[in-house]
């Protein structure tokens, strides 16, 4: 009999405690952001898809077409090729594509690059209607960039 | 758990009991079993309070090797027990002793086609029903290795202590007929 009533009262008290928590929350400021209208600042360390780095001095990319990234990539999503050109040491980059649909963002390509020619972009709003939208031509992107 | 007592029991049941260096391999004992002793071994391990960590198969020649991994809740004692399947790719089940083996055996059946005799419900678990005969983890002829090739090689040049392995792994002269792709 005693436990019958004590259970009732402790139970009721625990329920009141719960109500206290939620009523406090009801009058607390909200913590969410209305996403497309308000945007959070994304950390500069965010690892988006890779991009070729634009050299501040020369205004060109730093890739020497060694192909390490292509070999290192576990998912075979990088393809690059170059050709021999007059006046350029080694090979000049002619094509550098990233198939982002297969990329797992592991960062192996960035780390293996001997000239630090690759870096992560900060883009995170990635949505598209076709797979082809995610086949990036990085060479074109670096040329178009400011 | 008295490890010496347990080891004695292992020796009775198995063909070889090997002490392994935990710092290098991550487990303590390796036990090689005849396939008809697997059930006795499992029953003995359950009596001693071991739990079944994992059950898997490795495709090597001469036959597929089934590896049972046990560990103990109270003391650090991680055991790998190995047994080869017979010509019919069969081995007896331990799923009535360790019920947790039930799904592991079904999975091994999926991936390697090992038939666990006496299993109550040996149907595809991870793979779809139509892939019964797929056996995806069986090696193709070119990649298949002999069982000795995947065993730990004795250090050849100088008998170094195993606890402090050479930090340069390439330096170790492993006479392995490796046919890996580059």
């Amino acid at each position, binding site marked *: 009999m005693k436990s019958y009533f004590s259970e009732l009262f402790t139970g009721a008290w625990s329920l009141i405690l719960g109500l206290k928590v939620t009523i406090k929350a009801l*009058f607390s400021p909200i913590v969410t952001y209305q996403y497309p209208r308000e945007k959070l600042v994304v950390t500069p360390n965010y690892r988006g898809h890779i991009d070729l780095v634009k050299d501040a001095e020369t205004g060109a990319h730093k890739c020497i077409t060694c192909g390490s990234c292509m070999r290192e990539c576990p998912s075979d999503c990088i393809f690059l090729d170059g050709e021999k050109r007059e006046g350029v040491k080694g090979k000049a980059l002619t094509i550098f594509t990233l198939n982002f649909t297969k990329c797992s963002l592991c960062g192996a390509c960035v780390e293996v690059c001997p000239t630090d020619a690759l870096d992560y972009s900060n883009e995170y709003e990635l949505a598209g209607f076709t797979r082809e939208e995610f086949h990036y031509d990085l060479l074109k992107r670096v040329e178009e960039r400011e | 758990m008295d490890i010496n007592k347990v080891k004695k029991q292992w020796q009775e049941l198995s063909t070889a009991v090997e002490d392994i260096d935990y710092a290098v391999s991550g487990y303590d004992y390796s036990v090689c079993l005849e396939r008809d002793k697997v059930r006795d071994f499992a029953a003995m391990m359950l009596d001693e309070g071991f739990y079944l960590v994992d059950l898997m198969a490795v495709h090597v020649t001469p036959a597929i090797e089934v590896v049972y991994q046990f560990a103990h809740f109270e003391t650090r004692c991680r055991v790998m027990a190995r047994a080869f399947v017979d010509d019919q790719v069969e081995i007896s089940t331990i799923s009535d002793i360790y019920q947790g083996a039930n799904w592991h055996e079904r999975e091994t059946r999926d991936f390697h086609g090992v038939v666990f005799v006496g299993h109550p419900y040996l149907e595809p678990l991870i793979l779809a029903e139509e892939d019964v005969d797929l056996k995806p983890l069986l090696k193709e002829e070119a990649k298949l290795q002999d069982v000795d090739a995947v065993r730990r090689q004795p250090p050849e040049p100088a008998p170094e202590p195993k606890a402090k392995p050479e930090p340069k792994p390439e330096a170790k002269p492993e006479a392995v007929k490796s046919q890996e792709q580059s």
Partner: protein
Amino acid sequence: MEIFYSILPELIRIVVCAVCGAVIVFGNALVMGYAERKLAGHIMLRPGPMEVGPHGIYQLVVDGLKLMGKQLVVPAKADPLLFRFAPLLAFAPVFVPLLVIPFSSKLQGFDLDIGLLVILALASINLLAVLIGGWSSNNKYSLFGAFRAVSQNVAYEIPMLLSLLSIIFMTNTFSLKAVVAAQSPVWFIVIQPLAFLIYLVSIVAETNRAPFDLPEAESELTAGFHTEYSGMSFSLFVLGEYANMFIVSSVATVFFLGGSSGIPLPYFEYSGIIWFMLKVYTLMFFLVWIRWTYPRTRFDQLMNFCWKYLIPFALVNLLITVVMVKLL
């Protein structure tokens, strides 16, 4: 013709009451739908609907339009007639109880002698609709929901009635107006706090809301009895639920919180209705508040709570009331 003229005022009265009832039902659903989502949002530290209109106030209108535009899917093996009939049955009876509720001393459709009985009888029809809807869907989850709803509602009607009965013993009438009138010095919540608590718990179960929302328990039964319903037929169930919430809260207001009585507001003759609505919506806020606070109970625990706690307490309360009424 003379007969016509003699019943004309009565006819007009019926039409006006029906229109008012419809306005209350739909208006209440809009208000509650919005309030519930907004309150739930703020309890969870998020803003709730924000996109359609300032602070999302048109959200419910948009939702209503969307639901109306949706296809009414009838599952292949469902009973098509009953499947379509169930939402109507859930929704139609909610108008009648509104006629007998005294919103203020003057605002009342009909002051029936059996006012309470009308409300209780018609409120129970909703249960039948849930059963028919769940059964005719030909879905095991729906069927579970329906079964749970029936046993839960039947069980919880007993403490609910017993708690109201103790008021009835004190007032000797089923007329809601008379019950309100009987609370002129003190509200019955002061005299009968236990009955009020029992009634409050029972109406949570009666309206199938969390923590007693077992008939629709989405984590167990996906959506319970309305798993297979889509579009307007689904929203009729929701409308019915909100209307039922309104009715049971009104009954609580009438029986325990003094109905429309309150301090008369200056310059406004019908201040009663404001007090009445304030009390009703306070109770409904409480229902929303507990819904977003507690986990769901288990079925046997729900029944145990009813039989082990609510009914004994209600009976004891009734007994004490009867003795006191006889003595005083």
